[in-house]
């Protein structure tokens, strides 16, 4: 739930409570005020009647006497102190033929030695008649408030939360690899200032850690290269000397290990360079020609392993990729397909390369990988732990694809390894695999 919605709902709940209490107060206030005004009116009327009595004369037909009762009282029954009082309650209204709320004001006067009790009454609207009016008006008030709260809530939160949203955007754009510290928007709200300070420190330390780790890796790999070169040279020289067979085996094993070391090394260096985005794509490269050249370069190996090759390459496919990376991508994928190729039963091994404007699909026969296919993109993950490979070729392929925003998908089913790279951002690589016409013949 959005923050604004939450605030609005809370405000609404509070408003409801306040309006209920307010409604009750208003209701009783009106009730009381109505009574008070009415009592004052009757008091004045009583005073007027008393004045008429004082003046003498016949006023019985007067409209003032219509709802007035004038009584002469014996002196002893005149109450002390109170000159007037009022009562109210439900009573029969003969005019409207219904029970109505009746207000009755009684006043006592002494005129010319005689004691008079003057009582006047009238019917006023009752509680129950007022209630719907009060409820109705509060309903409207509530509605207006609600609309105002929703509208202003949206506007105000937009204004108040603007720095927060800018910070969020800055954080989303943050990349560990970036060279500059993150830039957070200025704000006057102290909470957001606190948040920004905290985020700044956090990202800064993460960035510095990443940088130093990267520098360490780069330095270590650079420093490793010279000793490796020395050892390799010494072994080359040692091979030339007069050695026994068992020594030759030892040297060969050392060379194998050294070869691995240097391969791991150069692959890791390459990955680092890819991550550092050292390869900027310039002109789009014609991958159609490149694919044909790569296949030609591997032709001998394909023939040597007696692998059947099916090629379908559309002409003039251009992709935005650095030439060396495009080369590397194809070489890695095709050499992988050759290297892990195994015949299926009696049938020969097979490689199919399909290149269209949408993407590249490479299918080859092979043994089932020991791990899920997506994990093969991880570094040092191998489908077949016994193999000679170091398990970094596909990690490089994935890195290249990520750099160029190509989608990549690897699937295995019934003896076929299928790998697809989609060049178009809108086409997922898995779709290329669905369109694949199987079985291969």
């Amino acid at each position, binding site marked *: 739930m959005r923050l604004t919605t939450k605030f609005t709902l809370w405000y609404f709940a509070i408003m409801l409570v306040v309006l209920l209490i307010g409604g009750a107060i208003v209701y009783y206030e009106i009730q009381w005020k109505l009574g008070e005004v009415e009592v004052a009116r009757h008091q004045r009327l009583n005073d007027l009647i008393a004045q008429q009595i004082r003046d003498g004369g016949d006023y019985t037909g007067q409209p003032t006497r219509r709802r007035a009762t004038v009584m002469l009282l014996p002196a002893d029954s005149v109450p002390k102190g109170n000159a007037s009082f009022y009562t109210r309650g439900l009573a029969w209204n003969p005019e409207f033929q219904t029970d109505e709320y009746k207000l009755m004001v009684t006043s006592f006067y002494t005129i010319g030695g005689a004691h008079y009790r003057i009582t006047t009454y009238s019917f006023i609207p009752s509680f129950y008649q007022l209630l719907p009016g009060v409820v109705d008006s509060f309903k409207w008030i509530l509605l207006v408030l609600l609309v105002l709260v929703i509208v202003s809530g949206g506007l105000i939160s937009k204004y108040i939360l603007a720095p927060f949203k800018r910070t969020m955007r800055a954080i989303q754009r943050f990349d560990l690899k970036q060279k500059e510290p993150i830039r957070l928007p200025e704000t006057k709200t102290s909470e957001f200032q606190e948040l920004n300070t905290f985020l700044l420190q956090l990202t800064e330390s993460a960035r510095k850690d990443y940088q130093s780790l990267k520098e360490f890796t780069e330095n270590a790999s*650079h420093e490793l*290269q*010279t000793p*490796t*070169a*020395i*050892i*390799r*040279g*010494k*072994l*080359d*020289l040692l*091979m*030339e000397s007069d050695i026994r*067979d068992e020594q*030759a*085996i030892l*040297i*060969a094993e050392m*060379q*194998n290990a*050294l*070869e691995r070391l*240097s*391969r791991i090394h*150069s*692959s890791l*260096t*390459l990955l680092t*360079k890819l991550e550092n985005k*050292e*390869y900027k794509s310039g002109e789009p490269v014609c991958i159609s020609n490149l694919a044909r050249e790569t296949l030609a*370069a591997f032709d*001998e*190996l394909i023939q*040597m392993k007696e692998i059947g090759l099916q090629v379908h390459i559309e002409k003039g496919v251009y992709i935005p990729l650095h030439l*060396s990376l495009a080369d*590397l991508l194809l*070489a*890695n994928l095709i*050499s*992988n397909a*050759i*290297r892990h190729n195994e015949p299926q039963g009696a049938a020969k091994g097979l490689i199919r390369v399909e290149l269209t404007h949408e993407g590249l699909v490479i299918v080859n026969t092979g043994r089932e990988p020991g791990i899920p296919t997506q994990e093969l993109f991880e570094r040092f993950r191998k489908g077949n732990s016994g193999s*000679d*490979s*170091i398990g*970094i*070729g596909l990690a490089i392929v994935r890195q290249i694809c990520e750099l160029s925003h190509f989608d990549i998908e690897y699937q295995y089913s019934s003896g076929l390894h299928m790998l697809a790279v989609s060049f178009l951002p809108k086409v997922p690589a898995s779709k290329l695999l669905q369109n694949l016409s199987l079985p291969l013949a």
Partner: protein
Amino acid sequence: MLIVEDNQELARNIRDYLGREGYICESCETLEQAKGKVTLFQYDCILLDIGLPDGNGISLLNYLRAEHKDTNVLIISARNALDDKIIGLEKGADDYITKPFHLAELHARIRAIYRRKNLGGASIVEFNEISLNTDTFEIRVGDALLDTTPKEFDLLLYFIVNKNRVLSRQSIAAHLWGDYTDNLANFDFVYQHVKNLRRKISNAGGMDYISTVYGLGYKFNSHLGG
């Protein structure tokens, strides 16, 4: 030959290997020393390390150009950086090799530069009855033309340049497939290529100069039986 390399061990490896091939090698460790030497002496080839203690090896290339010295330069770099390669070759270097390299590979590169620059148009490499044309990639044994693939041509050239040397399978694989050996360290391919090459040469009546060295690799023997 001048070796400009700040690591003495590496320089000695190169000196030892090339010394056995009959090259006269000198080495120095800094850019300053290298400048002094190229001013005083004439070298056929300079092996130049890019990362030197007193500066970038590229500046020696600039210096050589400014002094109008026509010396072959082979760049040795620890960094497999594309920029180094492009800049180096633009500034007049003849070739580029990345550490760690096989000494046999280095030797083959030096010979290739030498052939290109110093032998002018003559691009025939001959050994006894075998001759290789590096322009047309043709191998002849006596008068017979061998039907070989480009890889087999490369392989034989590599053998002949490094004759009487033990060539490890790794070194051969690296030479033939270069950067791609990352994924193709399958030495069966090397075996296949060597086998095919030997068969083709002997079918054409050539001598079988190539022998297997137990455990290590192969060797091209110039003195059979010796």
